[in-house]
């Protein structure tokens, strides 16, 4: 029986992950046709409920839902009654009355999408909750990595940057781990928690580990009350992909990934974006296919 909700990677087993990844491929194939949409979710309503600002995830979900022929409504939280003090629970009751079949939620509180999922028969998709999870990002990352490394088990991915505040790091390392990829973290000591994954606080040391891909994270200034490192320039020179480091990455044929939005001059220099093994544009395109695969795979209990 198919799932109602898509809330995190932890609760998925390997078979489900592989199925979602395999299924994303035929969706990606649609993008090169002149007609990019299919009627699979014709007549269904997808509601976007974003309590936190987002451009790329929101538009990626919107494009994904529209390419499945669903109707998309964006619930404009900053201009809604939420600012007048309406609780999430009451907002969901209102949205229930609109008979949405799918609700895509982003919230600054970990666990809020799961709470909404218990309240509604609509399928709830977590588009990022606090520092907890960002499962569709993880899915698109795994899909992108699998395109360049079809045999994932045994491959090594180094996740660099602000691990502590990153739901992307959490979800993406979980999915890669489930797929047999070795994961290691690298970043300033203040931003890299001790986990079961290998931990580096020095870029050169991490490079000696021999990663197949380096996954850069955005430094999340908005989640840090007091700075965890002295300055952007300092961060760049110690943990950013500078021209020198790019040279080494390029010589060793390592792929570079980033969930976006990027901070030029902090986690990476401009030249990274022209690097032939930079997968950032593919990640954006694959995000739509991965989200179509998720939407298509869920079963709302609305009728």
């Amino acid at each position: 029986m198919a799932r109602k909700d898509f809330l995190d990677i932890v609760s998925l087993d390997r078979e489900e992950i592989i199925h979602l990844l395999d299924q994303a491929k035929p969706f990606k194939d649609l993008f090169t046709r002149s007609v990019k949409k299919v009627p699979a979710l014709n007549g269904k309503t997808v509601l976007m409920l974003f309590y936190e600002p987002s451009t790329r995830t929101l538009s990626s979900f919107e494009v994904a839902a529209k390419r499945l022929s669903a109707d998309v409504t964006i619930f404009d939280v900053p201009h809604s009654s939420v600012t007048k003090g309406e609780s999430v629970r009451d907002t969901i009751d209102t949205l229930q009355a609109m008979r949405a079949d799918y609700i895509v939620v982003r919230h600054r509180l970990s666990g809020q999408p799961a709470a909404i999922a218990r309240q509604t028969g609509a399928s709830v998709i977590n588009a990022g909750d606090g520092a907890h999870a960002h499962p569709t990002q993880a899915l698109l990352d795994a899909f992108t990595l699998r395109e360049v490394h079809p045999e994932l088990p045994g491959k090594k991915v180094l996740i660099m940057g602000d691990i502590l505040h990153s739901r992307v790091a959490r979800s993406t390392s979980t999915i890669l781990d489930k797929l047999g990829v070795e994961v290691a973290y690298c970043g300033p000591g203040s931003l890299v928690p001790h986990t079961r994954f290998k931990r580096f606080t020095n870029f050169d040391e991490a490079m000696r580990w021999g990663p197949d891909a380096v996954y850069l994270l955005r430094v999340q200034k908005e989640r840090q009350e007091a700075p965890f490192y002295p300055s952007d320039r300092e961060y760049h020179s110690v943990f950013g992909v500078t021209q020198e480091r790019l040279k080494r990455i390029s010589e060793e044929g390592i792929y570079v990934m980033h969930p976006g939005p990027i901070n030029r001059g902090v986690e990476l220099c401009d030249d990274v974006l022209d690097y032939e093994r930079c997968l950032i544009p593919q990640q954006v395109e694959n995000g739509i296919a991965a989200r179509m695969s998720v939407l298509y795979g869920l079963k709302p209990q609305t009728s």
Partner: protein
Amino acid sequence: MSLALDPQAISTAVSRLADSIFEASADGNIDLVGIRSRGDEVAERVFCLLKEKGANVRLGVLDISLYRDDFEHLHENPKLQSSEIDFPVDNSHIILVDDVLFTGRTIRAALDALFDYGRPGSVQLAVLIDRGHRELPVAPNYVGKILETNRLDHVLVRLKNTDGEDALEITSKK
């Protein structure tokens, strides 16, 4: 359960299909598009027979899962696979190929899917088995074998490459 067609009978039906398509072709240019799953294997076999006859054949595959009209009623979504049509659909004369023609709903979905690839000059339909009981105005141009069945019978075709053997079984609902 009864075995309605043995491997020999299936081969004969495939040959009959290829022969009638070849005879009807004016210039020997034939574009086949098989419908997953099993329609693609029928199309592939017809493709090989037509090649032997010297026809200029092209072969494509269509996955119609995203175009089905019973999406909501399925417990598990059908397993998606890619469609592969490597030749331009615009203005081409396409023969859709399927294993069993029953209600006609698959063909409706296949036409919708095909038209998202372009605007064919014409579309014809070739089926290995026509078992009757149409629910939509769909008629085949080429038929390998006509089978008399009851509306509630379950007709199961198995083909060598997809299922390991050639056979056709009919299960009657009591």
